[in-house]
């Protein structure tokens, strides 16, 4: 729903992007998604690639979830992150040891309920799948 992970080689530096609904008229990013632009009321919203790097603003580990899939032994880490372009998102957090101010990048992945969701990873980390994530979490 929120696009794919792109990695582009640019003079050996990997630039990670994610795709977010963006207004064709004024470029405002619409997250959570909207059918009409939050800024200018344009109805021309399309998914556009944007820089997936940002910083971690707040982090938490969920110890008590309403859904079984998040009931892992050490709890389920989530975070509020802000992309370099300004968009703020609540996302899954790969590593609960990451704290406020940490540099992260977002990756999108498919969860078991078929939803495209985002996870914040350390900058250096390669892309992962939901299965990898669960394997890591059940250790």
């Amino acid at each position, binding site marked *: 729903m929120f696009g794919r992970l792109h990695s582009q080689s640019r003079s050996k530096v990997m630039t990670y992007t994610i795709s977010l609904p963006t207004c064709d008229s004024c470029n405002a990013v619409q997250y959570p998604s909207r059918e009409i632009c939050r800024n200018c009321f344009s109805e021309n919203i399309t998914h556009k690639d944007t820089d997936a790097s940002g910083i971690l603003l707040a982090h*938490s580990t969920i110890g008590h979830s*309403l859904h079984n899939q998040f009931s892992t032994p050490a709890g389920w880490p989530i975070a509020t992150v*802000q992309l370099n372009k300004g968009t*703020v998102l*609540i996302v899954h957090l790969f590593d609960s040891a990451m704290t406020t101010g940490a540099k992260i990048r977002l990756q999108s992945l498919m969860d078991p309920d078929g939803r495209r969701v985002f996870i914040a990873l350390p900058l250096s980390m390669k892309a992962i799948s939901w299965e990898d994530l669960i394997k890591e979490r059940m250790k």
Partner: protein
Amino acid sequence: MSSLQKTGFDKVALVAPVSIPYTKISDKSAHYFFGRSLKELTLQANIHKDHIDGIAVSSFTLLPDTVISLTEYFDMSPTWIEQVSLGGASGVVAMQRAARAVQMGDANIIACIGADTNKKEGFKELVENFSSFSSEATYPYGAAGPNGVFSLITQNYMDKFDLSRKDFAKICLDQRQNAQHYENALLKTKLTLEDYLEARHIAGPLHLFDCVMPCAGAEAFLVMSVDKAIELDVPFVEIAGIEERYNAYSTDPVQYRGGWSIFANHLFESAHLARSDIDLLYTYDDYPVISMMQIEDLGFCDKGKAAEFVKNQDLTFDSPGLVHNSSGGQLSCGQAGSAAGYMGIVEAIRQLTNSALGNQVSRPFTALISGYGMVNYDRGLCSVGSILKAGARL
């Protein structure tokens, strides 16, 4: 935004504070709690239900029914109805709408009721589909309900103002002490700092006693003219001011303040009162960090200093200073859905008419009720505040 010149709320009375005792789980419908509230309101004001010509309600669990369904359910034919679906801001907003209706002559006696049931699994269903934004962009991330978002808000607030878990304890401990004296509180066991710190982990910095217990129940009051209250010979409270602000500071990446700081000075000016004149403070305490945010933004202390402010004074009902959430608040009484947004008003009316249920504060004259509500995505969007004063018989 241009500043508004609001008309005051002169000659409006609040009467008949009703709390329907909470239960953790109920197999009853929300209608049941509305009906019990209406009965109590008529008994307290010594009126027939046909005298109630206005009804304002708030409820999450009344769906698919609405306020109009209640008129048929209870054979009532009001001239004015309203439904306010603003969670923890609902009570203050319902009171504002009702007060204006009374002032304009649209209705004479308005019942304002926040009521919710809590069936098994009911809370999960409510959380899963709370708003379109939260279904898409918060629920899939850990399915923690409000605890998830508020754990992030609390962590950010701790980082920003260099606080630890211990700094949030005082609000919870003092409220528990208040609850021990309030008839209807669900949680009355004495709470020590050690109990607080060692409680079960919920999410991030939040542990069991930072979170409210969902439950079923109702809170209600009547709005009418002062003349009508005197005619009915019922004790009453008057409204010194009401302010509202929605979606304030929307560009703050994580919420650490709310609309109160925009309207607080105006609220006190319109009430002709200073902060130091306030005897009773009711903040919306779904989490202690939110109470602290309100204490700061209403101007009782500087931003980021609420932990120090609450640490340095006794906030309990028998304190000579500022009393905070005299009945124990949601943290000790439970959160009966929308009733939680009415709880502060109802308790303030009881206190200001000297009819508290075991926890009477010594001679209070003023109360400030603050509301907060509706985490549509990552923050509460409603900030409201009202100052009430003991009624003056002319």
